[in-house]
């Protein structure tokens, strides 16, 4: 089984208008920047993007918004901390202008929704968000003496993830804090595309050290490590 694609452009070529795409990465760490850039070149429209942030630590996602490709964003930490920097960011301007729909979830709920989708679970109860705006429109139920909110699974059409190393079968090895959203997003995506720094032959990875089993990954493409500099202000 060989899942290697020759280029990022070929790996994203079939993404249709209206697709939903989960994009891994915690600010700078583990963001599959070359896939996002390829998607900007590819030009699919009316997309729903599911990712932690819409600019902080990762300007590239803003290019998708500036390019009018995004209809909706589902996030947990979308904006720059600084109000003045945010005011000039394409995402925040589009939200204020009513041109970009946005849904925000607590970080733990956000990733659990993706985990559930990948694990065949329809919904789950979490104590996070009770008594806040997050509970609006959701079922609230008491278990024991504590209240919980019902949150539904979130299943994207595609997932863009990042790995330090993989084999041709799609087994992924992540590196330090760049692992973050990759394992659960990979399992959640109907088609998962992994941007990988180094691709080896089957047998060359230590099976005990694999973070994402290849069954979750449909496409692997070699990329050069993108250079970025941390800043979320």
């Amino acid at each position, binding site marked *: 089984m060989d899942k290697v694609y020759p280029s990022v452009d070929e790996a994203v070529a079939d993404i249709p208008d209206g697709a939903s795409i989960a994009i891994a990465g915690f600010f700078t760490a583990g963001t599959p920047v070359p896939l996002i850039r390829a998607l900007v070149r590819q030009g699919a429209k009316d997309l729903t993007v599911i990712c932690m942030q819409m600019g902080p630590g990762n300007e590239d996602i803003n290019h998708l918004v500036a390019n009018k490709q995004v209809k909706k964003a589902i996030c947990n930490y979308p904006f720059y901390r600084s109000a003045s920097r945010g005011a000039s960011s394409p995402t925040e301007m589009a939200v204020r202008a009513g041109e970009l729909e946005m849904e925000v979830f607590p970080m*733990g709920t956000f990733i659990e929704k993706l985990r559930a989708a990948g694990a065949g679970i329809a919904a789950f109860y979490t104590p996070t968000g009770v008594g806040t705006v997050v509970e609006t429109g959701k079922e609230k139920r008491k278990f024991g003496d504590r209240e919980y909110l019902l949150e539904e699974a979130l299943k994207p059409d595609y997932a863009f993830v990042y790995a330090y190393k993989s084999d041709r079968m799609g087994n992924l090895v992540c590196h330090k804090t760049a692992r973050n959203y990759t394992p659960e997003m990979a399992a959640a995506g109907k088609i998962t595309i992994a941007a990988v720094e180094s691709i080896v032959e089957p047998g060359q990875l230590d099976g005990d050290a694999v973070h994402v089993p290849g069954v979750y990954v449909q496409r692997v493409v070699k990329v050069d490590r993108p250079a970025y500099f941390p800043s979320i202000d």
Partner: protein
Amino acid sequence: MCADKKLKGLSRELMALRVANELEDGSYVNLGIGIPTLVSDWIEGRDIILQAEVGMLNTGPLATQDRVEQDLINASCQPVTELPGSCYFSECESFAMIRGGYMDTAVLGALQVSEKGDLAGWQNPERGLPEDIGNIGGSMDLAVGARKVIVAMMHVTNEGEPKIRTECTYPLTASGVVTLIVTDLAVISVTPRGLVLEEVAPGVTAEDVQSVTEPRLIISQDLAEIRL
């Protein structure tokens, strides 16, 4: 409610030191963005394990320029270092351990805290964004998941308005979770009887603190200068 004079309290660094003194040896601790992050400067050599939401236990000090690794950051996106015994895991597991009750203490910043221990910290309505969106990040999970929630914040806003309120007027992060408030002026514990003023900054009186605090404070019988 604004005080006539601007009270001079502790620096952010000394507030962080006061919070560090509150942490117990042998505990797992998560530090939020802002003043809480500075607490890490005061626990070197102590038996305290820092968790970073991004997916790391035993997060080390900030990385110096020559040791920056792109794949090694804390939850504030700052390059950090490893310590002996550091380990990594996914975001999902990171929040499983947070909600699962494995964090002994979370130190969070706040925009407002109520006298019942309600915490408002994720959205400042003055920024003018729609009321249901903003940077929630990991704050709501930490606020409900950690066994103890300490807030570290300035006592008043830049405009001099009290941040300790009878009721929070900003969107809540969680209700009834804060047990201790450390500010530049005071240390206040949240109790079923109300807010108890435990410690004051040097040169600051209980009356001074009350003048910039909306709810009535109960003055501890053991009121002391902040223990640094």
